[in-house]
């Protein structure tokens, strides 16, 4: 028998006026899974997380957390989830510890347990020394850590995190990754919305790619990369711009993307079928268009290329 379903969405749709934010979203996330939502800005990630948090009601479809409807069992379901928003709203005139105490106690945690949990988390996130300072004196990164502490203060069984590492320094990021992996080992289900594909590859056991409110593909990171197995990624640095349309016309070229562009340095990412002659044809086309190739690299596609492929296909 498989692990219990912690998150279940069936045909969930949500619109803001005429704008469709989510369209027929189906998703199952099992106990202990670390699940990442990837997608460009405006793809519907935050709307999906807000529906899971019980802040928004879907227009259509069914949402169940812990096999219960969040709309009908709001308090019971919310007591088992910890949420980190993409903002750091705090009571500025309170100390970090006072504010976190309120959150821990609001989840019904007994005072002794609340103290134990908070002391552990403040130490874990490196905020112990600052716990009695006013939040108004905290830096952005410290506020982010504080919000993470507050999301985890009641040992939630489901963590919903929107861009958790936003604003964190390198050391804190590593600490966060370690904590999230530890939580996953303790059978806590983690749902993350992330923009950084490298971070997603590091944290995700499964990934869903969203674009324009739809889930385009779901799978393990290696499965998604395997879906591009027949493709090669060619990265070309050019000294001057060239028209992109002729590159698209080369047989076997799937996608061309300008990734960086300064006056004399342009980086092109070309996703093309792994054919022997494709590189020659691309180079010939670039040179024929008077493009100066400064460097060229042939790589295996990574998760970022998967994201690019699936979201760009939708746009076309």
């Amino acid at each position, binding site marked *: 028998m498989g692990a219990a379903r912690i998150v279940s969405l069936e045909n969930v749709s949500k619109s*803001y006026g005429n704008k469709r934010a989510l369209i027929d979203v189906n998703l199952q996330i099992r106990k202990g899974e670390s699940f990442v939502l990837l997608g460009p800005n405006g793809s519907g990630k935050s709307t999906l997380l*807000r529906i899971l*948090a*019980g*802040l*928004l009601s879907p227009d259509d479809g069914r949402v169940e957390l812990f096999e219960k409807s969040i709309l009908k069992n*709001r*308090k*019971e379901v*919310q*007591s088992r*989830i910890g*949420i980190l*928003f993409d*903002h750091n*709203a*705090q*009571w*500025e*005139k*309170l100390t970090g*510890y*006072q*504010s976190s*105490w*309120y*959150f821990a*106690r*609001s*989840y*019904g945690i007994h005072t002794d347990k609340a103290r134990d949990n908070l002391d552990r988390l403040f130490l874990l996130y490196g905020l112990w020394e600052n716990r009695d300072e*006013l939040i108004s004196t905290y830096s952005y990164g410290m506020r982010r850590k504080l919000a993470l502490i507050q999301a985890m203060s009641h040992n939630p069984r489901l963590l919903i995190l929107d861009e958790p590492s936003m604003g964190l320094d390198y050391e804190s990021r590593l600490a966060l990754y370690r904590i999230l992996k530890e939580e996953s080992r303790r059978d806590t289900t983690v749902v993350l919305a992330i923009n950084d594909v490298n971070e997603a590859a590091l944290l995700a056991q499964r990934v869903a790619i969203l674009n324009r409110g739809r889930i385009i593909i779901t799978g393990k990171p290696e499965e998604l990369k395997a879906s591009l197995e027949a493709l090669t990624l060619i990265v070309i640095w050019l000294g001057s711009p060239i028209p992109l349309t002729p590159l698209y016309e080369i047989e076997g070229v799937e996608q061309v993307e300008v990734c960086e562009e300064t006056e004399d340095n342009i980086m092109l990412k070309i996703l093309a079928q792994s054919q022997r002659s494709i590189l020659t044809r691309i180079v010939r086309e670039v040179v024929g268009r008077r493009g100066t190739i400064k460097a060229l690299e042939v790589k295996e596609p990574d998760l970022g290329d998967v994201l690019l492929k699936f979201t760009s296909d939708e746009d076309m």
Partner: protein
Amino acid sequence: MLPSRLWQIEILEDIKNKKALILKFLLPLFFLSPLMTARLPENLKAVFFSLAVLFIGTFGSAVGLVRLRESKMLERLAILPKSRSILVSDYILSNAIFDILQMFAPLAVITLLGGPQPLRVLLVFICYITAILSANALGVLVSLITSSSGEVHLYAILTVLFIGGLSGLFILPTHGSLTTAFAMLPFRQLADSLIYAWGGTFPRLSLLAPFSGGVFFSIPLLLSSYLFRFH
């Protein structure tokens, strides 16, 4: 102090904001000083004081709540496994406690200068607390219909004018049944209780102040789910 309830947080925040705290206590003294010092007819003093209670309670509560919404603190509160009506009642109570304290000095001076009859002051005190709670409850209702901090002042002033008018604080209605209905409103009851404290006739309907306040207080609690509706 480690807060476990929203009202404790609101009070802690207010206490730690020293500048705002001083202003909160000085402004009523400043604006109500004419009532305390000038020789005005008693009914005028009573009406002005009731209007001040209505104004301060409604504005403070509405502006504070819209600010909580705009800073996204309401979103953070909405994810807690707590009853939304408890959150709203905590908010009203914490604001009311401060309003009661900040208006207490002017009230004491105005009442004492009027030469009150000691036993009658008790009714003033009950009506005063009821009116402040009701004004703060009105502020929550104002924030329900307001979408931004730019709008909140407009809706708050319209509400103060409307409720002040209904309470007969601008012009007393001449029709008998209307007078009875208006006297059921907490702000009229406060004005009537003040006049009574200075030797006026006994305002029977002011005895119903706790009931009127209960009605005002329970309306935002019943509508609390709308406050936590996000788009």
